[in-house]
């Protein structure tokens, strides 16, 4: 096994330098062209268009009641005795306990979460940021927001507010950075899980969710 010092010294030697590198000067890097300007358009509409292009279903909601109605409609398509998982902050923040009395909400705060979560039909999450350019949801992980909520259930429902939508990925990256260090996981998610490994034939929901619903609360 090589030591770190040997490994790095070999690279330095090969690069023809006498000692360890100092902070590199990024002067040789070309910044790339400017992104398309989206400031004039309706970002939420653009987001919805791009998200639907890759197979997500987007519902624009003018009120919290409209969000609840849309969620009830999605839950209505699921098999009975269903369990939905969500994070405590989403349950409280979006008043989900007022939605469809027949559903059992399993939150990340509960003891049974780790065991029962994989069997739940639907995972409901928020998002940190959404990217209009690609129809992407950006979710970071923490105690309140487990990674598996948007991964294991067959249906993923994301609830976002219009002001969370940014034009491009560069802005999303800026918003995700917290004091320079990153959360343990940052997921950029665009549409449902897909594969074309069987004779190039598109199949949806290979390992991750087969359905992605995004409910946008307009401001």
């Amino acid at each position, binding site marked *: 096994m090589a030591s770190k010092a040997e490994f*790095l010294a070999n690279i330095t030697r090969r690069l023809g330098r006498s000692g360890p590198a100092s902070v590199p000067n990024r002067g040789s890097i070309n910044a790339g062209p400017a992104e398309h300007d989206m400031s004039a358009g309706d970002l939420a509409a653009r987001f919805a268009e791009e998200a639907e292009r890759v197979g997500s279903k987007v519902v624009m909601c003018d009120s919290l009641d409209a969000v609840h109605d849309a969620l009830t409609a999605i839950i209505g398509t699921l098999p009975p005795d269903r369990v939905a998982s969500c994070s405590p902050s989403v349950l409280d923040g979006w008043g989900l306990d007022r939605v469809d009395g027949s559903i059992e909400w399993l939150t990340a705060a509960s003891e049974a979460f780790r065991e029962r979560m994989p069997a739940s039909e639907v995972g409901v999450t928020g998002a940190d940021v959404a990217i209009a350019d690609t129809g992407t949801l950006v979710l970071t992980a923490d105690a309140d927001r487990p990674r598996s909520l948007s991964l294991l259930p067959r249906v993923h429902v994301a609830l976002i507010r219009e002001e969370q939508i940014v034009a491009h990925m560069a802005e999303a990256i800026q918003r995700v950075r917290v004091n320079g260090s990153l959360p343990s996981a940052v997921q950029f998610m665009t549409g449902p*899980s897909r594969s074309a490994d069987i004779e190039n034939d598109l199949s949806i929901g290979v390992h991750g969710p087969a359905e992605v619903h995004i409910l946008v609360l307009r401001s």
Partner: protein
Amino acid sequence: MSSASNGHMTDRVDVALADVALGGAVKFTTDRLRGRKAEASEALGDWQEWREAGRSIRAHTVANLDYYVDQFTTNATAAGSTVHFASDGVEAVAAIRQIVREKAAKLVIKSKSMVTEEIHLNAAFEADGLECVETDLGEYILQLAKEPPSHIIVPCIHKRRSEIAALFSAEAGREIAQDTVSLTAFARQKLRETFIAADIGITGCNFALADTGSIVLFSNEGNGRMTTTLPKTHVVVMGMERLLPTFEDLDIFAKLLPRSATGQKITSYMTVLTGPRRDCEVDGPDDVHIVILDNGRSNQLGDPEFQEILNCIRCGACLNVCPVYRHVGGHAYGNVYPGPIGAVLAPLLRPDDPAAAELPYASSLCGACAEACPVKIPLHDMLVRLRARNVARGNGKPEEQIAFTGFAKLFGSASLYGPMMQLARLGQKLTVGNGRRPQWFMNLFGPAGAWAKGRDLPTSQGASFRERWAKRGGHRNGK
């Protein structure tokens, strides 16, 4: 590792060319991928400028690799990951085996990773009797079929639906129908059980971010997320050149990589992982081990002819446009990385392997690969230099030596060139039959026979330009 890597490339090519269905599948898939890439790069706009931006970031990173590997290691360690350094594949495998022992792991899952193919990790696990399951749908199919991948991005490009159904049926112990929905449903259910039971998840990494100590995975199926969410231990195998300086730099590669690989604007998932789960989190691995692999890469540093090969982001675009790859598919190369990138990488990473030395000849030098490359690696120039290097090592053929010495003499001298061309035309009249050359004559071609077998020269058309020019009185009558 594979039966395909035995013997000579020419033998493997003959097998591949005889397989009509394979040829159709490879052509269909590569056509589709490159068509989509063209559409997606067109839609982005300013493709050449984005390429140049990508190239400049990669070149800068590689030129300062010692700094960025050091910075990455410091930040990954601060985030709670354990970093290991491996000079070659043997050391990398040893480090991973050690982790498996410490965790007393019984079941390991993997998400698609070319670098673990490079170090023959699955073979090592098999020798240890450790169960290791590939979770990418294509790789899972190949694992059941006991075959190596034939494309960097679409590993089972060569497998037909009927073969996949037969493999799944044997695994399930019941009949699985041939339609995509049934096949996918079986794999989802079967692999879901495996994900939950697994002790260790192993991935490669598409990029590593120096300023945050993060690793980045692009995937469409979500198996990369499963592999890094459910098992208690996550092992990352990382080629030492995978780095990007900052999280912000990822933006450009999130544009270049998916578009070049599959023609997608972005893959379904781009996952940025920094250290193990924090104490308060309910899922994610308790331990993250990152094995940084050299395995011949550092030999390219400081070499002005080949350093740029380390800019590669493993998108597979050069495979999809390569006329040779498109005819013979991936297995004919007998190498982990096929296509133009493989033909350059193999002899660079394994300079003493004669099987690798013949790969640079599997190219028509048309340059389509360099044009397709999202970070502008001059692959065709490298292929020529590798051929030159091979000859300089004394591996050239004596017939070639004679032929090219003669060629140089002939084309360097006007007094020799004229009469020789007349003689050649006479010879050609006797031998070129527009496809109707007798076999006894073909045999006389000797080493050029294989070349002549697939090609017909048109019969020459009377006098040459030089002769007709001379007849008109040459430059004296010229206007």
